[in-house]
């Protein structure tokens, strides 16, 4: 695939932003989402684990975490839909020297609340949370987490000791939950000054104590902003729901072929609906029975149904990673996911049917979406 120039953006265009191990690719379509134009690779040779589109405050800004094993990890910004990207002279996200830690990778970029258009958060490896209050120019680590008393005992998962999930309370500016592999969930109720482990009920299958205070390998947590206290969690073995902002968790793996998995996506409009892609096991990290099946609950985890129309149901040994699933905000919602084998699938009818949008991309690690303001 040859690099192509960024396309002209139009208001209402849908962009599926795909981060791969070798660069980012943008798939742009009209609201019908029947045809897609691809542009990329952006940042060829860089692993793009995190992407974000930010429309707050009238912006049309794209953020990309570009990581290269030679020169490290930096945050890049585009205000023209990817035609040009900033390249900061100095890297904007750095640990303080006193911490003894050095940035390995940016794993997540998350916007702050709608009425705080200049607030952005980044989750990084080694596990820490960084905050910018000026639209991404300047960054500081959140000290309460950086210096948490548990921090010296946090252990990395297979992907590294990463803070990969940031769940912001849209109503309460003091509250936020983050997830770390393999430390579990932590929540602040005082704007980041203090953080408490929030893992009661979440199993740590790989530890002698299966229910420790912390040390769980949480893979993803999602919620709906209209019902923020209800969280859904895909664990390293285990599928859970919390109705109290993570104070307690209940097993909701009802009718799935495996409760191991990585990716999890909230429905953009329905507070009861969540999508996952079960993986067979942590030893054999492929789709069960070689069938590529998205599972959806429409009743907050009481039951799950397979969604397979258009997806390969034979010889499909696929892996879908924790950030490789996204949803657009249209009605009906579009759902998208990418595989480690470089296939990108999309549904414009909320998962009822799927089409293959691309094959042969580098391994996909991140799928995010945007409906453009332009």
């Amino acid at each position, binding site marked *: 695939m040859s690099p192509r120039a960024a396309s002209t953006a139009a208001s209402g265009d849908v962009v599926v932003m795909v981060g791969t191990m070798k660069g980012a690719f943008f798939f742009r379509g009209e609201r019908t989402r029947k045809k897609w134009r691809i542009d990329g690779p952006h940042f060829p040779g860089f692993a793009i684990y995190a992407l974000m589109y930010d429309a707050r405050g009238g912006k049309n800004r794209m953020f990309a975490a570009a990581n290269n094993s030679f*020169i*490290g990890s930096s945050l890049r910004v585009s205000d023209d839909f990817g035609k040009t990207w900033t390249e900061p002279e100095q890297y904007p996200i750095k*640990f303080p020297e006193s911490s003894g*830690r*050095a*940035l390995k990778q940016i794993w997540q970029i998350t916007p702050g609340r709608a009425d705080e258009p200049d607030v952005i958060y980044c989750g990084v490896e080694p596990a820490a949370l960084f905050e910018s209050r000026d639209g991404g120019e300047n960054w500081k680590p959140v000290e309460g987490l950086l210096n948490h008393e548990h921090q010296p005992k946090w252990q990395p998962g297979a992907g590294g000791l990463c803070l990969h999930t940031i769940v912001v309370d849209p109503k309460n500016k003091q509250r936020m939950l983050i997830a770390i592999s393999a430390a579990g969930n932590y929540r602040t109720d005082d704007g980041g000054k203090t953080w408490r482990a929030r893992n009661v009920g979440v199993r740590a299958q790989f530890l002698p104590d299966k229910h420790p205070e912390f040390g769980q390998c949480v893979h993803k947590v999602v919620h709906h902003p209209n019902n923020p206290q209800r969280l859904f969690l895909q664990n390293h073995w285990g599928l859970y729901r919390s109705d109290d902002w993570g104070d307690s968790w209940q097993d909701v793996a009802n009718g799935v072929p495996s409760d191991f998995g990585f990716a999890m996506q909230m429905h953009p409009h329905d507070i009861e609906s969540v999508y996952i892609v079960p993986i067979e096991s942590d030893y054999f990290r492929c789709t069960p029975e070689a069938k590529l099946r998205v599972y959806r609950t429409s009743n907050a985890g009481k039951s799950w149904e397979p969604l397979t129309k258009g997806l390969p149901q034979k010889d499909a040994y696929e892996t879908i990673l924790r950030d490789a699933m996204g949803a657009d905000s249209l009605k009906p919602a579009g759902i998208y996911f990418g595989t480690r084998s470089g296939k990108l699938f999309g549904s414009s009818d909320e998962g009822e049917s799927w089409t293959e949008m691309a094959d042969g991309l580098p391994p996909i690690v991140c799928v995010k979406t945007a409906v453009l303001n332009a």
Partner: protein
Amino acid sequence: MIRVELPKALNCQVDGRTTLEIAGGISTVRDAFAELGRRSPGALDRVMDEQGHLRQHVNVFLNTESIRFLNGLDTPVPDGATILILTAISGG
């Protein structure tokens, strides 16, 4: 005077050039990196992390010998030497 050759592949430059000449005051490879950071903090970011460690896939040679087999960043640098920063053979 010593010379520091920067890796072209890493977009690592000082004043648009990939060669840095340092007139004096350099005793070790570490000193040379400190001077690189003074002249171009961004270039230093691309070869060294914020704790002062060389990035994993960056190799440094004093003339033709890897500093890994000498004394690392504390390797003495004689006058007239060239410090060569190269990307390692890695990745897939």
